[in-house]
């Protein structure tokens, strides 16, 4: 009887004899990014594409991220787990990669914007910061 280790394993995409199967699902997303980028330039309208809602085949997501690459700006957020945010090779196109506290990816999206909304300081947090700073500078006056 054939044993498990006797079964030949062929890894696709490792060499030119076994090229990876291309499912071509990355290209339409690139067109959507281009369209959104034009909208941002002409009308100042921002857009977000939820990459987890797109039916990618094996390798499609990697291909898309490979094409977009990483550009000049990288930001790391530490809030309810890590988030990696980077501007891609195309200014105005940001990759937003959210992780939970256990280090598992919980969301992956592209934001077409001058600065991603989540990077901006939020009014509620600014109000909080004023209170805390006041308390630190005048510890006696705090109620």
């Amino acid at each position, binding site marked *: 009887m054939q044993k498990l280790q006797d079964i030949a394993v062929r890894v696709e995409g490792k060499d030119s004899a076994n090229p990876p199967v291309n499912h071509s699902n990355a290209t339409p997303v690139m067109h959507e990014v281009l369209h959104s980028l034009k909208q941002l330039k002409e009308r100042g309208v921002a857009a977000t594409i*939820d990459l*987890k809602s797109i039916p990618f085949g094996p390798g499609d997501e990697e291909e898309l991220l490979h094409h977009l690459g990483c550009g000049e700006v990288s930001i790391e957020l530490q*809030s309810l787990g890590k988030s990696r945010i980077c501007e891609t090779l195309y200014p105005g196109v940001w990759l937003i990669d959210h992780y*939970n506290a256990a280090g598992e990816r919980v969301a992956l999206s592209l934001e077409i914007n001058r600065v991603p909304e989540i990077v901006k300081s939020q009014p509620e947090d600014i109000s909080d910061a004023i209170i805390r700073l006041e308390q630190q500078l005048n510890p006696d006056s705090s109620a």
Partner: protein
Amino acid sequence: MAEELKPITKTLGESLRESGVSRRGFLKFCSVTASMMALPPAMVPAIAASLDKAKRPSVIWLSFQECTGCTESLTRSHSPTVENLIFDHISLDYHHTLQVASGDAAEAAREAAMHENEGNYIVVVDGSIPLANPGFSTIAGISNLQILEETVAGAAAVVAVGTCAAFGGLPQAKPNPTGAVSVSDIVKDKPVVNVSGCPPIPTVITGVLAHFLTFGSLPELDSLGRPKVFFGKSIHDRCYRRPFYDKGLFAETFDDEGARKGWCLYRLGCKGPMTYNACATAKWNQGASWPVESGHGCLGCSEPNFWDAGGFYNALSIPDSDVIRQAAYVVGAGVAIGAAAGALNRSKQAKAASEHETVTIDDLDKRS
């Protein structure tokens, strides 16, 4: 336990802020929630506004004729922080597989939750209800039918989780020895949401609960009572292998060249064209894969009577390659073929259901 059963007055926004989560963290939570509920990212500000004011609903989970696969699925949700946050803000007051309390204390917890949250709690049901003999399935000596009727009476809504609760599922498969029926066969005066699947996708279960937590209402449903955001499109329409179907490239056996190249599994019995579910995008096991990506056709587990719908490896209809060639000139041909194939499938399915076909070993090795 008693402390947890007190009515919760704090909103989600308040309690997150108190536990040291910044507004930016809250916005991240909202983005993840939007993605989980399959809502467009443009909805995030609306979700933030609603979640900020959301109050923690009480949830009572009832398990009837089931295999606990639905609970296994739920507890293996792949985004624990988000789920934990949601469960910190949903009061899961009764779930006899998960709760610590047992016996009289467990039943007291259920009664207390029903009393404290009269008219506002959610009942989640997995498993079908046997009507042939109430003794076939009981909890604390109470029949499934009685406990369901009693618990649902004061509920805001019922979520039928899994194909057994939604449509009768496996217990109802021919010859249905227990006289199993679905939740919606019994509950007529409350909104029932069907989250079908065997098991259902974990994020779909939490997505529906998150929708109720966020908006205080139930999501829009299809004709079978399933949330449209998750069940609005067929597996076939969202399948990454769909381009192969449109080109007429099919795997004929599980080990031929087409199978290795990842071509369409239609001829190997894939039920994708008649199955509505979110597997193609939500995927399984931390987004690792899903049946079609693993090289096996869809079984149609989120559809009524999937168990009696003919052999899993019987291609319900073989698309004619000439039709494909002719239709390729028509705009939207793929959709038209899909619809026609779906109609054929339904008639074949009805025929198979009445004749109750069985699968033989030859079917597994079948060549069209």
